[in-house]
């Protein structure tokens, strides 16, 4: 009995250590996570390749920016003022990748685009967290998400796209942003 007890004790200790480790990791990452409205809703529980299937629901803090004409219009203004246009142009890309197409390197869901803008990316995307406020980053994310919407593409003539961005429908992100909806062809 005593030996069994001892084993249970060690297991319990190990479990406690694991939990403590998790807490520590959570604390660490929280220090660098977006604050305020941008804070992630929950963490991924399973490891998947970046851009692969994620069993998470989108960040609820993105909700106010769906269906909002104000978000995409303000986002466009900030996008131009902050020289995003200098790298990505009006969605076709140049120094940075295109934004008006169907390929998302770091995920095309509104909250994923938010993260890309907030944290930056190693191949040259600057981190805008702390330089733009949370609402501004969400608005730029909404404008970027809008660029590839069929509604936006249809609203704009050839040559200079993305000048009349359509609001981002909630449905646009239902397939994790970059997947084709089931039953549609490309």
């Amino acid at each position, binding site marked *: 009995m005593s030996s069994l007890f001892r084993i249970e004790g060690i297991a319990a200790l190990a479990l406690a250590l694991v939990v403590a480790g998790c807490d520590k990791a959570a604390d660490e990452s929280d220090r660098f996570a977006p604050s305020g409205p941008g804070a992630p809703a929950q963490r991924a529980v399973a490891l998947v390749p970046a851009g692969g299937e994620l069993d998470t629901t989108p960040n609820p803090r993105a909700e106010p920016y769906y269906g909002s004409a104000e978000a995409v219009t303000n986002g466009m203004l900030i996008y131009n003022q902050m020289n995003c246009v200098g790298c990505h*142009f009006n*969605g*076709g890309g*140049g*120094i940075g990748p295109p934004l008006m197409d169907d390929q998302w390197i770091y995920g095309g869901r509104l909250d994923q685009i938010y993260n890309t803008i907030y944290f930056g990316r190693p*191949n040259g995307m600057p981190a805008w967290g702390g330089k733009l406020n949370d609402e501004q980053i969400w608005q730029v994310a909404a404008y970027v998400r809008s660029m590839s919407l*069929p509604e936006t593409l249809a609203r704009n003539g050839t040559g200079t796209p993305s000048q009349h961005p359509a609001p981002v429908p909630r449905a646009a992100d239902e397939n994790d942003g970059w997947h*084709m909806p089931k039953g549609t*062809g490309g």
Partner: protein
Amino acid sequence: MKTTTVLAVSLAAVIAVAVPVLAAQQALFPLRQSAKPPVPEAVAAADVFTREQIGHALVPPTPEAGRTVAAPAAAPKDDGQWLMPAKNYAATRYTTLAEITPANAKNLHEVFSFSLGVNKGQEAAPLVVGSTMYIVSAFPNHVYALDLTKEGAPLKWSYNPKPLPAAAGVACCDVVNRGAAYADGKIVFNTLDGATIALAADSGKEVWRTQLGDINKGESVTMAPLIAGGKVLVGNSGGEFGVHGWLAALDLGSGKLAWKAYHTGPDDIALIGDQFHPFYASDRGKDLGVKTWPSDAWRTGGGTMWGWIAYDPSTQTIFYGTANPGPWNQQQRPGDNKWTAGMFARDVHTGQAKWFYQFSPHDEHDYDAINEQLLLDMPFDGKMREVVLRPERNGYVYVLDRKTGQVLSADPFGPVNSSRGVDLKTGRLIVNPAKETRLGQVVHDICPTASGAKDWNPSSFSPRTGLVYIPHENLCMDWMNLEVNYISGTPYVGAEVKMKPGPGGHRGELTAWDPVRRKPAWTIREDLPVWSGTVATGGDLVFYGTMDGWFKAIDARNGNLVWKQKLPSGIIGQPISYRGPDGHQYVAVLSGVGGWSGAVVSGPLDPRDGTSALGFVNTMTDLPTRTTAGGTLHVFALPH
């Protein structure tokens, strides 16, 4: 011809309307790959000036006064090697090798190839030193040494400089590299993130590494260094990021900074002092690099140096140009914006300026002045004259006196309407007010386009024909100024540009220019912009490549096509020709489309946005249907 054009345009209009509707019906996510916007209509021939209208020279041609040759001290006897991208300090890119001729070129075949492992724009020239070939790839700037003595030229060594990945975020126009240079047992090259590295040529071991550029300020380095007078000369890129342009000289032995000359700002940092004697009055005065700018704008005013340098050993003088002023929106920087968009002559040992000439004072159209300059001795005004020849981005071939910087002649070689020639009394470009750029207003059909009548890709010169083989573009543009804020490390441009084909509708040309008679001997039209260099040979051939992957040999005397070979990707590199260890003549070139003109493929970018890649995509919408990205060395020879 006319009917076809009209049909094509109306068909294109139907497609343009149909695509968004179709896309909306069929899929929520229209694919970039299925988007095929049309190439825009060409600018009319009547909208540009003729050579007769705007070409000028101090005196009429005197061809009987002698034969044009490379400056002798700058072009020593050919030893069959290729030690620097321009072949020699005179930058003639001419080899005396004559085994391959117009008569036998049809027998050329590929003897080996080598993948660079990078599918971005390959603009470099291979080097051949002894029996080894050296190649620098596009970012991340791998260096490869190939053993030419063995079958298939196996890899001798390779070197990975591990540049910062974020460097790609401050490279305006694809992540290109224009090659290495060899001297004193060292292969010297630059990385995109701003390091200059010397490797032992025999082992590939690092000898020294000097960090010159700072990507956090928007600086990158894409040029090939020039090694002259025991110095390694390197300049920065980043004219679209509001950087402060410079040229630096490093000691070849140690890599230590010897001098650094800034291209805007006060005289002491521009290395302008007692030795400075510019020919024209507009370049004389104290601290013009400050006074010709609005307050402090010179600090973010560009004037980078990412192109070519020539060197005259007889006077220990380097000749090179400075890039565009920043931002592109000229209304934010009234003044002549010195010392941007012009050419400096400097002492190679001290960096002190000797003369300066400004091709495009207060540039309004992104006419960087970093193109190649050829040092020639040619007949002018009845006697032989030492000159610098510059096929300039603003559309003119300039011939300047090498000692004084005086303009002897300036003649258009591509479509020009942004200016009406050069006033040879004052040296000043006569700007056409109708094509000046404006805030919030599109100015249509400006020629040449922002990338110029020609961009960086270098010309060659054959002393046998006396002709300069200029690879170039036939493009114009629409331009609108926008207000722009300077945010360190982000683009500082302030313009929306859309490029289009020039008169005739073809987008590229190879012009064989007669510098003495001031006109083309012949011209080849290419559908796509010619973004490769040229090389001329003693067998009277000129080699160049097209952006859809044709590598071509041309008869240097008449422009006849004598051979062509399709390569796996478009060609924007610099061809060379060398003598192999077996004594035979070889021709080498890199394939791998990209650069500013080919970014739509190497990006890849979305052709539905004509403004992307600073407006170049607008006129390259068909390129993704004609070639794919790549990166391969190809070497050709006759059967033997």
